[in-house]
């Protein structure tokens, strides 16, 4: 069932990425790990660029990371974000060595610094979709 009042872009998972989105619904952040050489990778894709193995396992990330970069979005480039600006977009470097883009609400943009410790939390934006969000880690 889709939520008609939700107007933001909705991901279209592929066979390669479905486990990632399914885990988010269970409030778990998972990453691919090469079953052959153990290298973690993100975003989900079929081949390990390190050893070219296509054997993959999914590991649960600690959800802890640091700020790698950020921006404050002032102009909404999508109708679903009208009235929601400004919001902080953050590039997070996870402990597992990969990065992801998320939002960092409830933080004063002027206080953000590279290396600031952050942790994941989960927002059920519709019955079908959960997004990973970040907050400061004490």
């Amino acid at each position: 069932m889709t939520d008609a009042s939700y107007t933001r872009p909705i991901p279209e998972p592929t066979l390669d990425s479905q486990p990632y989105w399914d885990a988010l619904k269970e409030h778990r952040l998972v990453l691919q790990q090469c079953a052959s050489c153990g290298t973690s990778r993100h975003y989900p894709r079929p081949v390990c660029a390190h050893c070219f193995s296509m054997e993959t396992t999914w590991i649960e990330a600690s959800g802890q990371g640091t700020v790698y970069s950020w921006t404050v979005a002032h102009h909404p480039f999508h109708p679903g974000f009208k009235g929601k600006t400004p919001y902080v977009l953050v590039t997070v470097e996870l402990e597992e060595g990969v990065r992801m883009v998320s939002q960092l609400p409830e933080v004063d943009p002027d206080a953000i610094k590279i290396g600031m410790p952050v942790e994941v939390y989960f927002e059920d934006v519709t019955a079908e979709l959960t997004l990973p969000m970040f907050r400061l880690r004490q």
Partner: protein
Amino acid sequence: MNGLRDRVAITGIGETAYTRGSGKSIMSLQMEAALKAIADAGLSPKDIDGVIPYAGMGVVAEDFITNFGIEDLRYSATTPMGGASCVASLQTAAMAVATGVATHVLCVVGRNGYSGSRVGSRVAQMPQFKTIAEYEMPIGNIAPPQLYAHMARRHMELYGTTSEQFGHIAVTIRQHALLNDNAIMQTPMTLEEHQNSRLIASPLRLFDCCLESDGGTAVVVSSAERARDLQRPPVYLMGIAEGHPDSPSTITQRTDMTRLGTAKAAPQAFAMAGVTPTEIDVAEIYDCFTYIVLCQIEDLGFCDKGEGGAFVQGGRIALGGELPVNTHGGLLSQAHIVGMNHIVELVKQLRGTAGKAQVADAEIGLVTGYGDMGDGAVAIMRR
């Protein structure tokens, strides 16, 4: 490795009026620009035997066969690298001409970027953006200013680069646009106005962002041998390369977020040309955003990584400075014709026909393309 050095030349250039509201179809804009470029070279449309249209704008090589009655088109290709496509198309055109596969290759682009669909809605449809579309757009990281702001912010944090330094780029390029009758922006910009312009995606302000505009632009690439018999003085290609960044589909995962594909292309292009950055008289640098100009200046080797902020100050990139940049007004103030307008401007500079923006005695120049989150292309030319 000399590669393509001096084996081909740009023999014709053509531009439509650049506007906000062309009232013409994209097809018409491309045909008009192409006909002008072909006439500029002193050729007939039927002489064109290779066509490289900009990928994904709805006009394909077949349309040129149909409109021009080309009897034997022997080569067509596209180079889907976003804003790097046009300079990259010169490379594949040069390869086709140098190997004898084609004789005169038309590289062409035309768009209604202002009056047609806008960038925020366009990028979601592009296959190069599918990873962003799945993982970052749902979060709100949607349009290029937002995607690239992460790079700009990290550069500022690592190297102390400032918004005022971005402003020097915008103000200088606007000054150049004022010298160009075919530039959309015709009023001066002050550094204060830049600093007071509204934030789009911090640190990027409105005046850090390029225009959305309508227009068409084309060039003809021919062999150096043929070029000498055509009506314009040839502008020879000395060196050219394209470069793709690590993690090309997401900026997020890039090993070094402050380096573009340009950093890989530049050493190749300079080596092929047999020149160094100090020998460049004029540079037309893809300027979708001010930060992207600053970053490319570093990646091209005009200064070290982290020194771009200081480099762009003090008039160094203005006409009369050490390295005049975007003498036509660029995407920031002339028009966003995906950088084909940068190629045309470099050819004018090296022909000595750049009017009020002419760099005195310009002999060697450089043009770049940049797009799709980090692809870079670099061409070095001489008169």
